[in-house]
């Protein structure tokens, strides 16, 4: 197996492919956080008073809170005063009216990343709301969407154009004092996406946002809000990749989903932010709060994530199943290599009757990667006949990595039923030998086995995303296995 490990390591050691920095002048607020900074952010965006009040409330709550310490991750204490809380590409001031007006270097960056902003997006039928640092610079397909009444814009624009809608839903799933990072986000969120699908509308295309962290030392505090009215459907894709940086960058996003009666939201993520170098220097700290609420009967929320990037991932996309017969799903592949750490999982809170949830979590740890699945399944007293099925499997590659499983099950209703299964295994020597004996190279064998291991999750991703995700796994793992 010696040779194998070496090959694997050489693959793992491939430099981050997306490590380049776009040189664009940024308008950046000096580092530090106080009420004035919160006011400044709100003022820059011409927000209504209630929004500022809400932000200040969040900030005051945040001051009283302490960072969570229960996660299975290690990092130096974060100096929140050394982070700049606002940056916008300068060209924004002129306000690009079309793609032609967008800084060509920005477009070039996207090009390098292979993001389908132009022809590709047409081919893929993807509407792109590209977020460069903190401000939205281009939104496409808006017209086509508005024909059916779908609103898809940046949250700043939504605050201008649909303030009442935003006011009604923001913070209704993740309150401003939900947790340390959510409170921070609520105080300083810069921008993000807003999606509103009216009653009975099936969104005609996959909605997609590519996030990108660029300016040095700029924390990213995205806020996404998706509301699916009665009987509507939307599939939302979020993909990330970041340029190489030496200093850690904090990312504390909040995503809120609301599904009304018979509505369905499918939220897919491929996360490939800079994970740090092979010695564990640099990389993104990804502390995200994602939660969806199935408010109406028979509503459905499905989270699918492929997490290969970031130095530290702290993320638990959750579903609160309030409506009777509502459905929550969580499909996850997380890969940690080199010195990456991930503590991720989900919460399924069953409130309504006949609610069902499914959790399929696949963790791959390679090199010195550390990974924990942490999940909660709770059946409240009223969750008659609720069902949960959980499966979390870990695949270990190398002998310095770790894989941990911490599921919490809380059942308060006797008619509810939860089944949890977990397993940990390594890529077996006998499996590799069997493949090699059939003439298949070790690398091919490994990628076959890994893709087989993740198959149940990959099939939940929209096609174009699945391809990208498989590629990512390949880049992150090829040669990492032995």
């Amino acid at each position, binding site marked *: 197996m010696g040779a194998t490990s070496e090959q694997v390591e050489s693959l793992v050691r491939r430099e981050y492919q997306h490590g380049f920095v776009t040189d664009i002048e940024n308008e950046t607020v000096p580092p530090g956080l106080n009420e004035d900074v919160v006011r400044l952010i709100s003022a820059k965006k011409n927000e209504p008073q209630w929004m500022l009040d809400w932000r200040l409330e969040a900030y005051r709550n945040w001051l009283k809170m302490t960072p969570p310490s229960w996660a299975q991750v290690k990092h130096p204490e974060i100096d929140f005063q050394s982070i700049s809380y606002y940056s916008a590409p300068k060209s924004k001031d002129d306000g690009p009216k079309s793609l032609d007006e967008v800084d060509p270097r920005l477009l070039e960056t996207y090009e390098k990343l292979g993001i389908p902003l132009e022809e590709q997006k047409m081919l893929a039928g993807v509407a792109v709301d590209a977020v460069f640092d903190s401000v939205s610079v281009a939104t496409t397909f808006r017209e086509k969407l508005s024909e059916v009444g779908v609103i898809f814009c940046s949250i700043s624009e939504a605050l201008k154009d649909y303030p009442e809608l935003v006011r009604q839903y923001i913070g209704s799933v993740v309150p401003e004092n939900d947790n340390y990072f959510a409170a921070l986000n609520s105080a300083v969120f810069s921008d993000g996406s807003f999606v509103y699908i009216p009653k009975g509308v099936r969104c005609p295309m996959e909605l997609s946002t590519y996030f990108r962290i660029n300016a040095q030392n700029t924390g990213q505090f995205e806020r996404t809000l998706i509301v699916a009215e009665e009987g509507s459907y939307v599939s939302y894709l979020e993909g990330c990749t970041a340029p190489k940086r030496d200093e850690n960058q904090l990312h504390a996003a909040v995503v809120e989903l609301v599904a009304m009666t018979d509505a369905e939201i499918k939220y897919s993520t491929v996360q490939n932010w800079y994970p740090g170098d092979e010695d564990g220097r640099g990389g993104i700290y990804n502390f995200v709060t994602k939660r969806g609420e199935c408010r109406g009967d028979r509503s459905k929320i499905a989270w699918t994530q492929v997490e290969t990037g970031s130095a530290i991932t702290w993320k638990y996309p959750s579903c609160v199943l309030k409506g009777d017969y509502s459905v929550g799903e969580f499909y996850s592949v997380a890969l940690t290599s080199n010195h990456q750490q991930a503590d991720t999982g989900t919460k399924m809170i069953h409130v309504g009757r006949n609610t069902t949830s499914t959790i399929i979590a696949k963790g791959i740890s390679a090199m010195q990667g550390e990974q924990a699945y942490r999940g909660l399944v709770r059946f409240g007293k009223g969750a008659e006949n609720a069902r949960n099925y959980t499966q979390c499997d870990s695949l270990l590659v190398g002998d310095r990595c770790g894989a941990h499983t911490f599921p919490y099950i809380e059942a308060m209703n006797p008619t509810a039923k*939860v089944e949890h299964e*977990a397993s940990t295994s390594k890529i077996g020597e006998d499996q590799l030998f069997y493949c090699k004996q059939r003439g298949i190279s070790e690398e091919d064998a490994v990628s076959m086995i890994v893709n087989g291991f993740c198959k149940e999750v990959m099939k939940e991703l929209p096609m174009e995303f699945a391809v990208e995700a498989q590629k990512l796994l390949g880049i992150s793992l090829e040669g990492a296995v032995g």
Partner: protein
Amino acid sequence: MSAVDHYLNAFEAEAAGLPGRGQPWLDGIRDAGIERFAEVGFPTPRNEQWKYTRVAAIEKRRFGLPAAATPVTARQLEPFLFSGLACDRLVFVNGRYASALSSISEGEVRMESLAAVLKNEPALVEQHLAHYGDMKRNAFTALNAAFMLDGAYVHLPRNVAAERPVHLLFVSTEDGGEFAAHTRNLIVAEEGSSGKVIESYVALGDGGYLTNNATEVVLGANSELEHYKLQEESLKAFHIAALDVHQDRDSRFTSHAVSFGALLGRQDINAVLDAEGAVCNLYGLYVADGRQHVDFHTTVEHAKPHGTSREFYKGIIGGRARGVFNGRVHVHQDAQKTDSQQSNKNLLLSHHAEVDAKPELEIYADDVKCSHGATVGQLDDNMLFYLRSRGIDKEAARGLLTYGFAQDIIDHMSLAAVRDHLEGILVRRVPAAESVAGIL
């Protein structure tokens, strides 16, 4: 006065009278215990290990040491014996050894009151006593270390296969009042030895006492021990216990832990597989109803390669009861080729009951095979229907299936007399008990 102050004062007042006082090594243990307890006090739900189990009710009481002598007759003990089982027996009343009620046969296996050993031959136990139970992890273990009063010392010499099981019977009496019995057992199985030890905790009447037990088991190379722990305390009592097991190479340890009694029962089981080839089997059954609260916390530490562990726990929770299971398997970096399986299944019988299950895997080695599973639910509809279609009424069918659910755990016990005893208790605790008893 705070609870901590109460126990500090009690220690100051009683320490001189505790067995073995004056032995420097033992004094060191007791002093470390009370210091640790003073430092941390009783655990709160903020402590992850006690997230689902509040001990405020224990903290509120001011338990003292048990009175010196409480008369109990051999006849009163009969319901707690295993008929047909030839065994040696050490009886403890309110935490103190009762020689008149005990019966110990001649043989190579040494068994006696720990208090007597501490007084007369403390050097015998110095090597092992309080070496395995972690005071830092568990405040109750620290409290026990400070106050340990009596219990059993069982020693299986090298290459000796014990012919008879040893039964350690801990009886609490209602007239003992609100006392705390800090019992401590030490079981040492030397290399190549084998034996069976049964600990049972029972009550005469329904006293509101506290049992705070700590048992340490040390297994030498290639030794084998089957350990039974039957908890049938009074339904007003508190039962807190820690079983700490240390395993040398190729040793085989099997634990059967059964919990029927106590208002609040909390059992920690920690096994360290500290050498190659060790095998650890943990079986558990907990049945709770009314306002009972039962909590099992198990940890299997795979520290060395080629270890095997199997863990099967089942719970039946009804009424307004709450059942908690936390099973942790920790595979250290050195522990390659570890083979570990864990399963926890719970029957939740009532709308007012609650089950909290937390199976945990923490793995730092790569060449391992580990799995765990947990379920919470009710009886299978298909099975119920099948029984009913054969003419068994619904309640009896529920009772039978509940009985069968639990039976599965009891079946792993090698001593038929203990199985019979437990089945007798079990059949009274399932739905439609009378019909079920009639059918069986």
